């Protein structure tokens, strides 16, 4: 939020004045009203490893994160470029493997990835789109540029919180939206449905009346709320594996009026559990025979199977090369510097500097299997050292980054917390980036981990229609209108970093 100490960046100035004009008591009441809305509407997630019924609300912070128009334009271009390249990459490695033959990406890195599905080799997916729903984690570097921290190409979640945050904020704090010109995000479900439909198999007998379903692992999944929410918003059926059956390589959904053919499945079940005949045999979440129907081209899956190979954290290091290889362009969004533990020189350097590094297991997500060097004990570091040496392919390291900060409302006081940004990209007939995203907040003071399972929260993310110059003018005009109302409260005085 800040450009220098105590000077807010232009697009935050109007918000700062609004906050200063508010009574802290009023802020606290608004936060309570927001929390209550989340609870009553059941906008919750489940924490694994605790007893039944441990549904929690995803903590929401009232103060929005603001992204000016030209910064967003850069993000939009960069993500479109990146996802286009990654889709070409996935097609290539499951077909000819040009990039492997030319030695740009080492062959053994791909084939040793646990998310590589050899069953997908030679299989053509609709529109050659492997990843149609993507949520990429971005961070803002100290120089103000956005960089990619992680690609989530399998079953990214969290988009329902983006929509809920906006809805709740508009309800409890309408005054903040005044004069800002914020892009709406509410059309996401509609765009998602259009994307899914554009993948429908060409041989569908009823192209005018396609059946799209959302496949959920069930009530006990941590993102079950999101599954019901999206299904409801898109007006499609929410199904579990046992609702679907495969006959003659066609997928049907079991309804009281008889079996109904299914054309597109937006699956929120991991590859491993999709089809017990093909992948994990002990899976009871999947649909026996689904893969054969998919192979026969009678049903579309979003995302395709085997996309996890491209968000493997070791493959991540090669993404800039991948973009140059397929698109002959320079990457618009940078990567974070990444050390591969499979490389002896890089490994020795990391092991010598473990207390400055963040070490991640390549196939994990959700903040599990991570070592944060500066916050770790000697015991933990020794532990990770052994794990890295035992399975170097399985780990990468990155320098500990100063995530950017944003003001957050903590117990009625405004304090600074680390944040990241996850915009959602849809790729079907065309690429759609809903202007906004999920800004995740590390709610513990000083913490760098933003995952909801590890004590993270979120805040609404505003993408502005206009650039900074226009805003500065609007802010000045608003200031004259306020007649010196600012300065009444004690809020918004701390904050550092970006």
């Amino acid at each position, binding site marked *: 939020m800040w450009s220098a100490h105590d000077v807010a960046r232009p697009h935050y100035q109007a918000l700062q004045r609004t906050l200063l004009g508010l009574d802290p008591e009023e802020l606290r009441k608004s936060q309570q009203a927001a929390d209550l809305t989340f609870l009553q509407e*059941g906008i919750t997630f489940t924490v694994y490893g605790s007893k039944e019924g441990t549904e929690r609300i995803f903590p929401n912070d009232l103060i929005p994160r603001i992204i000016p128009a030209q910064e967003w334009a850069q993000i939009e271009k960069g993500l479109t470029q990146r996802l286009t390249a990654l889709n070409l990459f996935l097609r290539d490695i499951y077909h000819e493997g040009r990039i492997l033959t030319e030695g740009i990406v080492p062959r053994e890195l791909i084939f040793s990835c646990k998310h590589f599905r050899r069953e997908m080799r030679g299989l053509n997916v609709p529109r050659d789109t492997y990843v149609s729903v993507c949520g990429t984690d971005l961070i803002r570097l100290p120089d103000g540029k956005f960089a990619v921290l992680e690609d989530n190409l399998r079953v990214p979640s969290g988009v329902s919180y983006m929509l809920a945050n906006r809805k709740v904020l508009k309800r409890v704090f309408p005054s903040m939206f005044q004069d800002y010109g914020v892009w709406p995000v509410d059309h996401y479900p509609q765009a998602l449905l259009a994307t899914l439909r554009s993948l429908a198999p060409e041989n569908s007998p009823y192209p005018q*009346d396609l059946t799209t379903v959302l496949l959920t692992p*069930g*009530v006990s999944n941590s993102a079950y709320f999101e599954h*019901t929410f999206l*299904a*409801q918003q898109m007006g499609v*059926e*929410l*199904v*579990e594996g*046992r*609702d679907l*059956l495969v*006959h003659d390589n066609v997928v*049907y*959904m*079991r*309804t*009281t*009026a*008889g*079996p*109904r053919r299914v054309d597109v499945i937006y699956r929120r079940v991991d590859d491993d559990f999709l089809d017990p005949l093909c992948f994990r045999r002990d899976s009871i979440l999947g649909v026996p025979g689904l893969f054969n129907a998919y192979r026969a081209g009678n049903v579309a899956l979003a995302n395709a199977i085997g996309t996890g190979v491209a968000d493997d954290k070791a493959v991540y290091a090669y993404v800039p090369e991948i973009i140059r290889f397929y698109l002959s362009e320079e990457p618009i969004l940078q990567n974070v510097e990444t050390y591969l533990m499979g490389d002896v020189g890089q490994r020795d350097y990391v092991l010598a500097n473990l207390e400055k590094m963040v070490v991640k297991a390549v196939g994990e997500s959700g903040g599990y299997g991570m070592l944060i060097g500066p916050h770790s004990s000697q015991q933990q570091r020794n532990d990770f050292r052994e794990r890295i040496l035992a399975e170097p392919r399985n780990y990468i390291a990155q320098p500990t980054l100063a995530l950017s900060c944003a003001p957050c409302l903590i117990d009625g006081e405004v304090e600074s917390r680390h944040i990241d940004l996850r915009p959602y990209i849809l790729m079907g007939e065309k690429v759609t980036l809903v202007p906004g995203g999920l800004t995740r907040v590390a709610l513990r003071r000083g913490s760098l981990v933003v995952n909801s399972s590890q004590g993270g929260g979120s805040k609404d993310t505003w993408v502005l229609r206009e650039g900074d110059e226009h805003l500065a003018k609007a802010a000045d005009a608003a200031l004259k209108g306020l007649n010196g109302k600012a300065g009444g409260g004690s809020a918004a005085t701390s904050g550092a970093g970006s």
Partner: protein
Amino acid sequence: MRPPRNYFVRAFRRDAGMLSRVADSMYWMSRYLERAEHTARLVDVELQLWLDQSPETGAGRWRFLLEALRTPAGQGPIDPTRLVDSLVFSRKNSSSIVSCIATARENLRHVREQCSSEMWEQLNRLYLEVMDARPEEEWMLKSHGFFRAVQDGAHLFQGITDGTMSHGEGWQHIQLGRYVERTDTLACLMETHFRRTAAPADLAADQIVESAEYLEWVGLLRACVAFEAYCKAHTAAIRPLRVAEFLLLNPEFPHSVRFAVDRVNAALHIIGDLTERKAKTPTRIAGRLRAQLSFSQIEEIVASGAHAYLENVRSECAQIHAAIHQVYFDYAIEENLAS
């Protein structure tokens, strides 16, 4: 009562049918809740009757109570406290009140987004209330409030369901579950009761019963919330033949077998129209049972054996259940695609 044929089909053609799993959950949710309500009422009535009796006659009653609730009694003497505990609180007994409410809630939880949030809130509240209650000392003597709360909670849930949920196919499955369960529990209760208290000759004689037996028959009526309704129809003179007629054949009283079967029949017809199914097994069996109840007279039934008649009602009811399951919830895909 039934809408004109094809009315719903035309209105909702594109959306014909709903997920079988969802329909199944709604059906069972409703059955379990009806079962909890029935058990609560029956145990409550039995405990009241127990207070009026000498200790010696008590032992036999418990065995009958278990039979009336379709719970097989073990060998050996029955301890009333443990028995009530197993009928009310035990999680080992899947038909205990607490188990039934927990199962109903679990079923609703899986299809929460298909129902109104008011429904979920009410069932969840009832669940939390019965989970909170614990058998403390002297609980049996103070239990009336608990049983009352279960019945009230179930009634409130039904009212909320009728008032807040679309009366579409899902709602019809809820009706179906409730009245299939009611038909079976009522038939079972009456069968046990007739076996215990009424020799066939006594029934046919159509006499007014005397003091000791009087309580039993009033108990039966109370267990079906039918005492007041019966008195309105036949005065407080309790004649077993009229009681049997009232509970079996009355078309207007909601806890009579005929009323319940009528509702099963109506729901099945609407579901059949909504889903455009060609298989008519459930409606056929339900129609046959309904015709029997509509055109039977109590004198004939008693003459040829009330016991056998009730056995037959229960077996038809089991067939209806199996047919619903087979046609709507768990069909073989080949049959349906071929047609």
